[in-house]
């Protein structure tokens, strides 16, 4: 099994997810947990709350200036890329027409530490 990060992108100008969209995201996360594929997942506050650091420079906003910004990240486990893509395809963000997801193999990391 390998781990993949699913980076969820959203259009920054589209506003917050609707209640329906939030519910769909929650259902998708529950499905991933139930299937045993989910390792960890986080939804982030909107991109206008982001602060970026580059050298000594501190700037307001996301690191990369583009229409789409990262809205969340999810780490899953899958046997190969095809299986990971299949899980990613079910992410509702893929279907909303305001963003999408990127799938990247995880090279290494630290498991969430229990507090």
């Amino acid at each position: 099994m390998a781990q993949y990060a699913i980076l969820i992108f959203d259009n920054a100008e589209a506003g917050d997810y609707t209640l329906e969209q939030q519910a769909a995201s929650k259902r998708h996360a529950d499905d991933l947990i139930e299937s045993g594929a989910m390792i960890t997942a986080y939804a982030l506050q909107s991109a206008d709350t982001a602060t970026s650091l580059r050298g000594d420079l501190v700037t307001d906003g996301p690191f990369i200036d583009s229409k789409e910004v990262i809205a969340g990240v999810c780490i899953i486990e899958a046997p190969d890329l095809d299986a990971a893509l299949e899980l990613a395809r079910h992410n509702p963000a893929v279907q909303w027409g305001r963003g999408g997801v990127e799938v990247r193999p995880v090279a290494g990391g630290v498991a969430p530490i229990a507090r």
Partner: protein
Amino acid sequence: MTAATDAGRAVADAHRREWAFVLAATVRVAQDLDLAEECVQEAYAAALSAWERDGIPGNPAAWLTTAAKRRAMDAIRRERTFRARLPLLVEPEEAVDELALDELDKPDEGQAMDPEDVIPDEWLRLIFTCCHPALAQEAQLALTLRLVCGLPTPDVARALLVSEQTMAARITRAKKKISAARIPYRVPRPAELPDRLTAVLGVLHLLFAAGHTAPSGPTLMRTDLADRALHLARTLRGLMPDEPEVCGLLALLLVTDARRVTRTGAGGRLVRLEEQDRSLWDRGALAEAHELIVAGLRGGRAGRYLLQAAIASLYAEAPTYEETDWPQIVALYDRLLSLWPSPVVALNRTVSVSMAQGPAVALAQVEALEQEGRLSRYQYLPAIKAELLQRLGRTDEAAAAYRQALELTGNEAEREYLAGRLTGQEAGPA
């Protein structure tokens, strides 16, 4: 003939015909593309001296596969941590075990390796891996040429018009992605097939197109590339006989290739379709294509390749260019456009429109496409426009369009043809 030249010829022959099979079978054992490639290369190198010494084996593919697999086994034995470091293509249920290693050590392993039994599945796995939609199309094409056709990297670079350095980097990057992202080495499930098959067919079509009209260079065609594409399409058809688009692609390549010998005249001069000697076309290939098209069209909804093949076949079946069934071709183009709204298809459609409805109607459509701007680097747009203007007697505008086309083409035979049209037209009555 000496044993040395015979062996050399046999190795060259096996390289052309069996590379993909030997590699595909070796990948299964090596579970790593780079290692498998290395082992296959070594096996081919070893074959030369072994066959000179011992004679050419009855089944060269089996000999090469056994030799390459043994090298892979040796490498794995030497490096037990291999799979931990390179998790590429690992299929746990089929992992290499000692039993398999022992199996290969038996003296009669050559007998057990009948290519007929193993080729289809292994070969398909290899090509579907190279054409995985997670890889960029340029990488798919490069990997197919490198791994499925066995072309050395410098040749791949030449075929695809990039520097050797760029191509080597592109191939390395694609292999790294296959390994790091764990792109599986398998034939897609039926539900995934449409997506994956589209990539495979697209690559074979591009490969053929690069051979049919070389994007640059002195000759109009690169017959070696066209031949490889045809061979691969034929093999794919043998493996997936019920896929209408596989039939369609093979038919399209066959119809197009049937005209190969008449496309150029003395000194490599380009000969237009309307001036080609139809008696020299490969009737066998055209008949085979026709059967594929009829079967495909009967089989259900026609896809992009089948429709293109049907159009090309209509061109080829007419007794003369003028007697071509133009309205039928326009109708097929309309179906093709609704399925695949490409500006190139729209442009090609205008040629049949000019024959069915006259050059003025066609010219208006070409100019609309020109306005759209998506074909601004495409040399065939000004070339077609020039022909239409010429037929309408608008000589000066035609000359300007020919010059524009000349500036855009990189193929010498095409340049010469366009230059000839330009001077012929300038010399003619104003």
